């Protein structure tokens, strides 16, 4: 019964969205959006469900191991996120800023995730796999939805919107296609490795090493992207917050390991590794903050 509450409104919304898109954006842009969104969502679901699945979609509408309702759900989220970002930035100086629009759209994707993930489990729209059920506790979840799923929605929404705006604004150049493939692949690898770690937790040192590699890649990509695109105060503030968050995260880990060492001295190597990682981040961040500081002053003075 509850499944109908998802399928019927979603079908009506979907038809309305397609009509709206064709009339407002034209046939070519609509085809681009819905085509890319369908391929992106389908590949995401297919790869994750084949290698490291955490949940199972309900319903009989399936192609292989992919529930089509979930694919439609993603397209629905992307469409609303894109609309929200376009409307909020309309007639402002951020109207053509890909990064700003992506961040605003991601906010809506995460807002929808908060509603869907907390309600969907209760309504039986999808359910966690038995291997994961024992790992979900009140301390690591919000009303039965583990915190990492909201990050997952955020990453999926961010990568989709960013790559879609790249395609839409700059057409299909080789450089763009490379960036799009790189971002999509990084997202998939991140989900596969992340999900595998959740299902079979490795020694914490592997987790740390992985997070060290991921954070380094994010910093390097941000640095290159920031140099490549037009500066604005919004991006500068977001990036500075992100850098502070990364350092803060490393410090919390060191404090946590130091407390563990009081009980078990074998964690001393882990602590040394964490300190080296923190020093590396401080070194990278110091350089980045200098650049952002100069840009920030330039923007303020202008």
């Amino acid at each position, binding site marked *: 019964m509850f499944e109908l509450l998802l399928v019927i409104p979603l079908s009506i919304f979907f038809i309305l*969205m397609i009509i*709206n898109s064709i009339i407002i954006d034209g046939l070519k842009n609509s085809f681009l959006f819905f085509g890319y969104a369908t391929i992106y969502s389908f590949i995401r679901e297919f790869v994750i469900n084949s290698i490291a699945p955490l949940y199972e979609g309900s319903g009989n509408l399936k192609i292989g191991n992919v529930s089509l309702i979930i694919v439609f759900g993603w397209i629905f989220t992307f469409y609303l996120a894109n609309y929200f970002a376009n409307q909020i930035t309309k007639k402002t100086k951020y109207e053509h800023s890909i990064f700003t629009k992506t961040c605003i759209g991601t906010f809506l994707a995460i807002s929808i995730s908060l509603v869907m993930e*907390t309600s969907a489990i209760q309504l039986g729209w999808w359910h966690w796999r038995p291997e994961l059920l024992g790992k979900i506790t009140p301390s690591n979840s919000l009303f039965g939805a583990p915190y990492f799923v909201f990050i997952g929605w955020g990453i999926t929404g961010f990568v989709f919107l960013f790559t879609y705006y790249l395609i839409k604004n700059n057409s299909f150049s080789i450089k763009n296609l490379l960036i799009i493939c790189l971002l999509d692949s990084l997202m998939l690898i991140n989900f596969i490795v992340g999900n595998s770690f959740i299902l079979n937790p490795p020694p914490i040192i592997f987790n740390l090493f992985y997070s060290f590699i991921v954070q380094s890649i994010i910093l390097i990509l941000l640095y290159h992207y920031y140099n490549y695109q037009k500066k604005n105060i919004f991006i500068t503030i977001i990036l500075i917050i992100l850098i502070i968050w990364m350092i803060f995260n490393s410090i919390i880990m060191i404090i946590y390991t130091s407390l563990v060492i009081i009980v078990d001295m074998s964690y001393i190597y882990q602590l040394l590794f964490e300190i080296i990682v923190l020093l590396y981040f401080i070194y990278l961040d110091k350089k980045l903050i200098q650049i952002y500081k100069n840009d920030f002053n330039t923007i303020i003075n202008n």
Partner: protein
Amino acid sequence: MINLKNKVIKYIPFIILGCFTFEMSIIVGLLLFLPNLLFCFIPLYLANLFLIIKFLINKYKNKAGEK
């Protein structure tokens, strides 16, 4: 008539977002009777509010431009 039709079509995604928020609130609040879960709806209601504010600002700007 055409103008009215165009205006309605233009706001379809906003109507969908509003309906979705309202529908989920009803399901969670009344059908499942889990009012605690409504706490998670705050960002979505905020998003709706941001859109309404933005539409009002645009309307005000357009009127000011016409004058």
